[in-house]
């Protein structure tokens, strides 16, 4: 449009001498050419840095670890390699969506500058199916599986092959106030009844759980379905399972949402808001990860005296809960130039010493079983026995390359939890997840 008026003006004024025009155009082209040359030189400089002689540089992409644990482990493993490799720690974005998007985008373009990467336990199927990560075999596989939590190995397995080595893990416990509830409830029904009693007595009574529309609410739903004896998908990950256990699970979630025990801001709550509500003294119960324990100790020493933990409550009385497992697995890129060294480095990064460091300095529970009996862990993890039990009986989120789609569908159907209509929600979910498995349909 601007061109149109411009033409009119210049036509009226007549053309300027041609030579001047062409010269100015040439100058523009010259500047562009210089820019291109400079940019390609800069790119070339990036590419050659790892090709120099001496130890091979292995790039390690992991979430940003604010503690000293990861940098220390990286240094230690570089030293232990005896000059074979140098590990360079590159931080991924803070949010897990951003982490996955960056890795997926680069791996889809066969980016060779990633050697080792920390994958959330829900990405392995997707990355393995797409051919972005290498399977673990032989001695490496044996070493990876030795003394490692079975449930975490399951998250790293796709189509019968191991695609990653578990690094750290996490799961939820029930945290409660012993001054309000002397004996912790063992079932959801009992917990909600306890909370209603406390409410009648005018005492702090809220049950804190993750109800916002995000991954956390999917985790809650998965825990509830698994604890009711069901699963979201069939074991092969090809079909939707759900059914009566899912209806039971949705029923309990709805029951909480419509009782006085629910936090008024349940619909927007995530882990940290849950922690703050409990620290502020308005809640009696909290379903959350162990990070709440040192936080309570630091933030509210008075309440900390009554701050106790218990196993996650049962969905169906008599059936122990299967809490959803979380954590990070280390995988080696299919486009790495030094896969064998990368496997070795990954094993070193998650070895006993570095996992102990991660647990005590970084605050992430280890995946090596025997570490839970190591007295060095007891000070930071007084709940080590309960968390180990929860981890060994934990449930795994649906294993499928379409996990992200399924998770978004689930979180939109179960949040806000007050909007659940157990039988109808199960039906809608089954049809939406079925579409998701076939990459049909949209995600919101």
């Amino acid at each position, binding site marked *: *449009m601007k061109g149109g008026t411009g033409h009119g003006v210049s036509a009226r004024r007549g053309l300027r001498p041609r030579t001047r025009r062409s010269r100015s155009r040439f100058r523009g082209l010259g500047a562009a050419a210089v820019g291109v040359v400079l940019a390609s030189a800069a790119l070339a400089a990036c590419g050659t840095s790892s090709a120099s002689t001496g130890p091979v540089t292995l790039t390690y992409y992991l979430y940003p670890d604010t503690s000293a644990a990861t940098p220390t482990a990286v240094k230690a493993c570089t030293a232990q390699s005896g000059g074979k490799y140098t590990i360079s720690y590159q931080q991924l974005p803070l949010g897990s969506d951003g982490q996955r998007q960056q890795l997926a985008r680069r791996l889809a373009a066969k980016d060779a500058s990633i050697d080792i990467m920390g994958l959330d336990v829900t990405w392995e199927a997707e990355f393995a199916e*797409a051919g972005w990560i290498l399977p673990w075999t032989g001695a490496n596989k044996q070493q990876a599986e030795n003394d490692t939590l079975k449930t975490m190995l399951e998250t790293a397995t796709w189509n019968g092959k191991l695609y990653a080595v578990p690094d750290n893990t996490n799961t939820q416990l029930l945290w409660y106030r012993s001054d309000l509830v002397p004996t912790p409830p063992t079932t959801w029904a009992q917990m909600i009844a306890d909370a209603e009693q406390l409410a009648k007595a005018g005492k702090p009574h809220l049950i804190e759980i993750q109800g916002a*529309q995000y991954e956390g609410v999917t985790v809650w739903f998965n825990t509830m379905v698994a604890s009711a004896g069901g699963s979201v998908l069939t074991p092969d990950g090809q079909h939707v399972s759900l059914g009566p256990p899912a209806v039971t699970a949705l029923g309990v979630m709805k029951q909480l949402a419509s009782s006085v025990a629910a936090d008024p801001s349940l619909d927007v709550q995530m882990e940290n808001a849950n922690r703050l509500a409990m620290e502020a003294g308005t809640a009696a119960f909290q379903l959350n990860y162990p990070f709440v324990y040192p936080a309570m100790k630091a933030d509210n020493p008075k309440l900390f005296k009554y701050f106790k933990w218990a196993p996650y409550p049962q969905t169906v009385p008599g059936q122990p809960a299967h809490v959803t497992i979380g954590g990070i697995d280390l995988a080696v890129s299919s486009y790495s130039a030094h896969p064998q060294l990368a496997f070795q480095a990954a094993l070193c990064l998650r070895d006993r010493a570095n996992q102990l460091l991660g647990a005590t300095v970084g605050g992430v529970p280890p995946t090596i079983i025997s570490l839970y009996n190591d007295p060095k862990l007891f000070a930071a993890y007084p709940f080590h026995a309960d968390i180990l039990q929860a981890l060994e009986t934990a449930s795994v989120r649906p294993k499928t*390359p*379409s996990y992200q*789609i399924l998770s978004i569908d689930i979180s939109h159907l179960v949040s806000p939890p007050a909007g659940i209509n157990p039988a109808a929600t199960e039906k809608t979910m089954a049809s939406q997840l079925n579409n998701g498995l076939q990459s049909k349909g949209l995600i919101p």
Partner: protein
Amino acid sequence: MSTRIETVAVGAAAEAPPKGRRKLSEGARAERRFGWLLCAPAVIVMIAVTAYPIGYAVYLSLQRYNLAFPNLVHFVGLSNYGAVLSSKYWWHALEVTLAITIISVAIELVLGMLLALLMHRTLFGRGTVRTSALIPYGIVTVAAAYSWQFAWTPGTGYLSGILGQSAPLASTIPAIGVIIMAEVWKTTPFMALLLLAGLALVPEDLQKAAKVDGATAWQRFTRITLPLMKPAILVALLFRTLDAFRIFDNIFILTAGGNGTYSVSILGYDNLFSALNLGVGSAISILIFICVAIIAFLFIKGFGTAAPGSDYLK
């Protein structure tokens, strides 16, 4: 300056061209040919950087193509479009986008006009006034969106505090209200600037003559200023409508599309980059492109004789 005013003022008269205009003189034809030659490099570059990606997006939109299933890529015809158009998420996104577009552009037009009249009449410090009015437009949208987000977050935000620790970003309608406010705050200066350029085209003599004839200020505004400004107003509306329809950054920062606040662009982004579904994501992008084309077409029709470049096209 005087010639430009003349062009606009007598634009309507010039629209009925004499029949002889088709016959171009030898010189004019050479000039036109030379013009095309000068344009050619730009046209070739534009085709390379726009036509190719658009064509590739059309091609992708006809496939089942999920990055996570590289072995299952195959041609599926128009079924991705069927999936999008039969999805309630698409229609919800379209409703949200249209609501944001219509409301924000309407508010911007009124505020922008007031601001433009103010700047036009400013007698001293004109440069300073214009520069300071432009500041919101100069601020990076993402940075501005973050400051709105903090302002509306209970606990840290002053705006949330004023309204009794409310959390408007946590529910649909208030969140869309905040998004519209952030858009209006940011782009009103742009609207004002475009309108100011239009105001400069209104000859002072006409205003004075009308005043002498006893026209009130309102009559002078509606009978003289507005009709003469029509081309400028339509250009401003077209730019802002197209911009507002493609809204992404403000929503991405403020709510990330949560709680039903996603626009069509956010929906496309989520399906392309979160679901890695290139097929459905491309279909959404093509549909957005078609919507934008329709808006542009309607505006050009609405411009009628005032459409920029229409004298040139004849």
